[in-house]
């Protein structure tokens, strides 16, 4: 057998060096923290054998501060393309074993090149984030590198799905990149996001807080609303990413992919006919309604532990991806407050970007009253909900399951905001305000002149309820397309979306809208 060409042997040696990242000691340290390395994560994310790395020999260039640093090929990030369920995807994976995954000029160039490729080829971009922050040695070059990435995140937003998987720290300005992307998945225990870390906060405000409390997974899932999904481990987060991408088209031109479903589209669910209690004061669980409507096991709830008075998530109905928005009457009576408005608005726009039709389940008694909410600007936050619905050009179907009062009814995809098909259950109550409040305004004099004021008010309220606490008044005026039995909702919704599949609703020419934020 002939001797191997030494040039081939050298290439093989170089490849092996690249593969080892920051070396055995740092890889072991990474494993000891319960984390996988950048390349192990890529192997789990994309289909086996489909990942192809780009620019593995790029290494950092500048050394202005005179700090002698070993040049590690690849620098702090692995970039490349692969396939998820056979569909192309572009991925960058920050390598914490190489200078702590810090952002250098070259790291930024690698990531930006990948983002440009993803856009040009109309394929999703996934970022696996595990970085110590800016590389201080590179000074402003590192900051400029961030800006280059942010600019692309923003400009490509709505063109290709962008998912950020938080698998380690993401501190300082770096946290803005995930914030722009469509979905953030955080791993419990070792992912953090904050602009100013615990040390800075202690120095400036004196507050003592640890990284987990300040910006860990639970904090962003339950308090700040920054993160959309929580994962138990790196493996779990990567499996979630694969799963979620199956609901998204590869870009804003394509339609979302359908998946075969064994759940019959004409499945009648008798339990739905009795799910809304007769007494309108008794709550029920809207999550159960959702689970019963969608293809079995296909419900993926966004932000399940934040602003729980609203629910948002993706599911499949008849195999076709659908975005579902609703109120949760068992939490805060399903009122819309500032957080709920933010949650709904963001989700509706996510669906609209990527041609995912929207089903809205309305049961809201109104906006949350209070000085606090008004002063914090519930007007502009609530306005976002109606802005998003009015702007969304995807097929929209809404169902009033029970309460639809006042502004909350209007903003939640009411018919004349541009909803294509509006249904109501027989339990629907559509009115400007509740019975007691309404009669106190409408019949103020009549009540005051009555002998028994309380009895008169009660009689009038009862009369009001009879007229408005049903869907027939709204249906008679054409504000509701049909009143349906709850059990047949699944079939009605699927057929509606099929009828609306080729909907075309062009946006008037403009640079972009000016949504209140």
């Amino acid at each position, binding site marked *: 057998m002939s001797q191997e060409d030494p040039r081939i042997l050298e290439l093989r040696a170089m490849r092996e060096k690249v593969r080892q990242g920051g070396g055995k000691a740092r890889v072991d340290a990474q494993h000891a923290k319960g984390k996988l390395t950048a390349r192990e994560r890529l192997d*789990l994310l994309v*289909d*086996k*054998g*489909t990942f192809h790395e780009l620019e593995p020999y790029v290494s950092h260039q500048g050394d202005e501060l005179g700090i002698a640093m070993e040049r590690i090929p690849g620098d702090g990030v692995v970039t490349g393309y692969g396939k998820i369920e*056979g569909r192309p995807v572009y991925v960058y994976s920050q390598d914490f074993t190489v200078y702590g995954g810090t952002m250098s000029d070259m790291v930024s160039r690698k990531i930006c090149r990948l983002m440009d490729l993803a856009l040009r080829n109309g394929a999703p971009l996934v970022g696996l984030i595990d970085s110590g922050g800016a590389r201080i040695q590179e000074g402003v070059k590192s900051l400029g590198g961030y800006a280059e990435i942010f600019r692309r995140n923003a400009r490509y937003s709505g063109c290709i799905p962008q998912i950020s998987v938080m698998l380690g720290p993401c501190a300082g300005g770096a946290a803005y990149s995930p914030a722009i992307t469509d979905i953030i998945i955080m791993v419990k225990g070792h992912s953090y996001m904050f602009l100013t870390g615990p040390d800075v906060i202690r120095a400036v405000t004196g507050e003592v807080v640890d990284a987990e409390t300040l910006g860990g997974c*639970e904090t962003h899932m*339950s*308090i700040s609303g920054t993160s959309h999904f929580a994962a*138990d*481990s790196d*493996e*779990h987060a*990567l*499996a*979630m990413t*694969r*799963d*979620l991408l199956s609901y998204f088209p590869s870009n804003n031109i394509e339609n979302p992919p359908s998946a075969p479903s064994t*759940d019959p589209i004409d499945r009648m*669910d008798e339990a739905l006919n009795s799910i809304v209690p007769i007494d*309108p*004061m*008794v*709550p029920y*669980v809207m*999550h*159960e309604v959702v*689970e*019963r*409507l*969608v293809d*079995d*096991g296909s*419900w*993926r709830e966004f932000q399940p*532990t*934040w602003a*729980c008075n609203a629910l948002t998530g993706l599911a499949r109905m008849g195999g076709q991806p659908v975005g579902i928005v609703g109120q949760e*009457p*068992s*939490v*805060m*009576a*399903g*009122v819309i407050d500032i*957080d709920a408005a933010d949650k709904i608005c963001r989700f509706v726009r996510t669906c609209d970007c990527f041609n995912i039709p929207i089903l809205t389940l309305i049961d809201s*008694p*109104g906006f*949350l*009253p*209070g000085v*606090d909410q008004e002063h914090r600007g519930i007007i502009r936050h609530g306005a976002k909900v109606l802005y998003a619905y009015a702007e969304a050009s995807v097929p929209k179907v809404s169902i009033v399951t029970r*309460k639809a*009062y006042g502004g909350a009814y209007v903003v939640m995809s009411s018919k004349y905001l541009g909803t294509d098909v509006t249904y109501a259950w027989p339990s629907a109550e559509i009115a400007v305000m*509740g019975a007691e409040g309404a009669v106190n305004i409408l019949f103020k004099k009549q009540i005051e002149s009555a002998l028994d004021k309380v009895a008169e008010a009660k009689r009038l309220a009862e009369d009001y309820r009879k007229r408005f606490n049903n869907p027939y008044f709204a249906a008679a005026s054409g504000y509701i397309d049909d009143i349906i039995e709850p059990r047949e909702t699944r079939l009605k919704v699927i057929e509606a979306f099929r009828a609306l599949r080729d909907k075309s609703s062009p946006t008037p020419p403009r640079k972009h809208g000016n949504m209140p934020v």
Partner: protein
Amino acid sequence: MKMKLSVEGKTFEVQVGDLTANPIIVMIDEERLEVWPVEEPAPAIVTPPVTSPVAFPKHSARVPVPVWKPRKTDVLPGTENSVIAPIPGVIVEVNVAVGDHVVYGQVVCLLEAMKMRNPLRAAKPGIVTEVKIKPGQHVHYHEPLIVIMPES
């Protein structure tokens, strides 16, 4: 390779040439046939499913499990042991008294607000040490209502 084959009572003399040749020459009686073997396509690369954990728990639509969970935003600094009003409203029913033991998730009072009787629940087990409300009382947003101290 020579052989005799009988098909429907008729006998043919068949001679098959080199099997590695392309084409393979087959003589049937005096007739010469060329057989062009077709390359079998390479087996498709099968992607084994990712061996990581199930991405999302698959609970069946037929068996929904609405589990109540305390919300982090219902815990404010200084009220860690209190049940607070998530929305402003009127208390219509108080289900516990001082000294009662309560379990996780137990309904401690009903708050009528936003056209709904909202059950408020204990976020952790313990003993009721203070009830600051009575039926008919108006309560503010985030007002502490009932104090439940953990049992030591």
